[in-house]
């Protein structure tokens, strides 16, 4: 089966305009998530503020352990032991005149009507996400019928078949057990499943890392095609910044449990405001641009149990200024996005920034280095 390939014809301005017009879907305020461990509480998401518009594709990128999955699970209210949302709210706007609800404040029962019909998820490992001892069909129909009890088993099954066909899997596989499908098929089945109740938002946590580039591309095409047709919003988490640049309307960069920069793909591509974003960008060799020697980010990711007092990235940052080690910068609105770097977020006035930068170039050289 061949799919229509997304054409990427919008310009950055058009994208921004579309987002602007679109009503807000999700409004995250001050969301904090902790992992309660014997060693101490790990704050894997710290004061996350985020706004998601209807139909928007938001990419989330960052190093391993930066809190991407944690954020996603918190948005879907899917944390499991030992994670707990410790503060903040997730305002969901149902649209129309209905008032917004704070998903973070609902208990499991109150959440039920929102699950899957409003917010659905695609997890990283399809193999682990499908129940190995239940036939594929039932894993579709149970959710379909839970949310639309009027449907009979047959109709639900037919609907499930349609969903599978949409992602290029023949409907007779409904009687198969998950282990009878190949990895790529499972992943696609999971995507089909996520669309079963026509959600407003699909949370995707690295849905393609386990598969081959070619398969990855194919799955993405299917997601994007469905998204174009159904208009749901997507939060897409991955390591792979190159990939995010290709598919997201906006991208949020996470570092040490915080969002450090938000911007459109275009802006992040040529005008990233945060040194971490730029370093991350450089870590992916291009395919079509001329080859030059690139370098990775020195040092190692921060230990969330023992975060530096200032900006978490400061120890690895070439441009770190004295103030960066003193207090964390705020995530502030900047043109076409947000940034949490003293150099670019406008928190410091120009004079102060110049003074700081001068001080930095004095003892320059990134601190930390290879400290492990």
């Amino acid at each position: 089966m061949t799919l229509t390939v997304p054409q990427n014809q919008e310009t950055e301005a058009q994208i921004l305009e579309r987002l602007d017009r679109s009503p807000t879907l999700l409004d995250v305020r001050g969301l904090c998530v902790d992992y309660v461990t014997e060693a101490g509480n790990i704050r894997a998401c710290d004061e996350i503020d985020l706004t998601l518009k209807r139909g928007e594709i938001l990419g989330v990128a960052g190093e391993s352990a930066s809190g991407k999955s944690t954020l996603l699970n918190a948005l879907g209210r899917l944390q499991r032991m030992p994670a707990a949302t410790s503060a903040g709210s997730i305002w969901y706007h149902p649209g129309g005149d209905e008032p917004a609800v704070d998903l973070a404040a609902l208990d499991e029962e109150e959440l039920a009507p929102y699950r899957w019909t409003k917010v659905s998820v695609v997890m990283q490992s399809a193999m682990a996400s499908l129940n190995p001892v239940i036939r594929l069909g039932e894993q579709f129909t149970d959710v379909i019928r839970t949310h639309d009890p009027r449907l009979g088993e047959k109709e639900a099954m037919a609907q499930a078949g349609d969903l599978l066909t949409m992602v290029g899997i023949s409907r007779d596989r409904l009687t198969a057990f998950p282990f009878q499908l190949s990895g790529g098929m499972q992943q696609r089945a999971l995507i089909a499943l996520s669309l079963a109740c026509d959600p407003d938002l699909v949370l995707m946590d690295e849905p393609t890392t386990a598969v081959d580039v070619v398969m990855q591309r194919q799955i993405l095409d299917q997601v994007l095609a469905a998204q174009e047709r159904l208009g749901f919003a997507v939060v897409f988490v991955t390591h792979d910044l190159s990939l995010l640049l290709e598919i997201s309307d906006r991208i949020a960069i996470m570092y040490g449990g915080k969002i450090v920069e938000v911007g459109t793909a275009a802006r992040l591509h040529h005008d990233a405001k945060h040194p971490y974003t730029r370093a991350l960008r450089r870590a992916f060799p291009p395919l079509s641009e001329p080859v030059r020697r690139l370098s990775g980010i020195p040092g190692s990711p921060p230990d969330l149990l023992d975060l530096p007092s200032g900006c978490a990235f400061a120890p690895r940052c070439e441009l770190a200024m004295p103030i960066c080690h003193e207090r964390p910068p705020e995530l502030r609105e900047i043109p076409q996005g947000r940034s949490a770097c003293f150099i670019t977020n406008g928190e410091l006035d120009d004079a102060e920034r110049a003074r700081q930068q001068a001080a930095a170039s004095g003892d320059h050289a990134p601190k930390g280095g290879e400290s492990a």
Partner: protein
Amino acid sequence: MTIRALDGVDLTLYPGQISALVGESGSGKTTIARLFALIYRPTSGELLYNGTPIRVRGGRAERAYYRNVQLIYQDPFASLNGLKKIRTIISRVVKIHFPRLGRAGIRARAAELLERANMTPTSRYLDRYPTDLSGGQRQRVAIARALAVNPKVLLADEPTSMLDASIRLDVLNLLSDLRETEKVAVMYITHDIASARYLSDRINVMYGGKIIEAGSTESIISAPVHPYTKLLLSAAPDPARYKGSGKPTHEPIADSRPVDNTSDIRGCRFADRCPVAMPKCTSEDLPLFRSIRDSHTVQCWQAEDDADYERASSDRSRTPKNSAKKE
């Protein structure tokens, strides 16, 4: 059931060069690396080292072989014994291969090796356990261990795929530097064609146990012939095609089934997914075409009409005397 993981592969590594091996999952890349590392044995054909066939089995000869050829594993978390100190891990190899060095000599050598792998100051790492190190650091320890024997050939099986984006480049750069300083031949196995382009001098593209296209990095990237190579290139994410750039994305991709290595197929294994497949792709043996200008070779009928290519031979996968050699 037999799985033909490799099927008539010719692959040559040259000193001071990095050859990349790219291809989809299950195409046989690891199998090649493990063949070279004598972990697997070929069912037919032979391995040549410096032109002589390798026929070692255990013992002294195997040790001698490993003095020249070393493998770096994909997962640095698994390839180091977590219960041994870095010092032990490295000096043990030194001791095996240079027993006459003496205690102090081995000590010095271990430190020197870590230094070569950019692990400075070495004293900070020697007495730690692998579990105390980050992935990138572990991979560098693994490389240092491989360097302990002064190898002529390094086989790096996806050395960065388990590593975080931010540290991946350091490992690649280290390999790149070793090519220059140690004049080793490196085989770099990867999924990621962009990193292959970044690092290597040559690229070999594998599909279904065969090397379907090989050539200098430049020619493979800029002038691919085989439809699979093209597909690989277009499927790989490219930051330059960022959303809003207006740049068209890739071509549509046919339904992709993973390659089926169990069936005995005549001709091209890619034919059933190939947008430009012809009847003869599966009815005739696959010929090998060679570029008239450089060392670019391709196993695909697409090259038949291309003026740049001449037919070198027919598919030799059925003939038993294939060889995979290193010189």
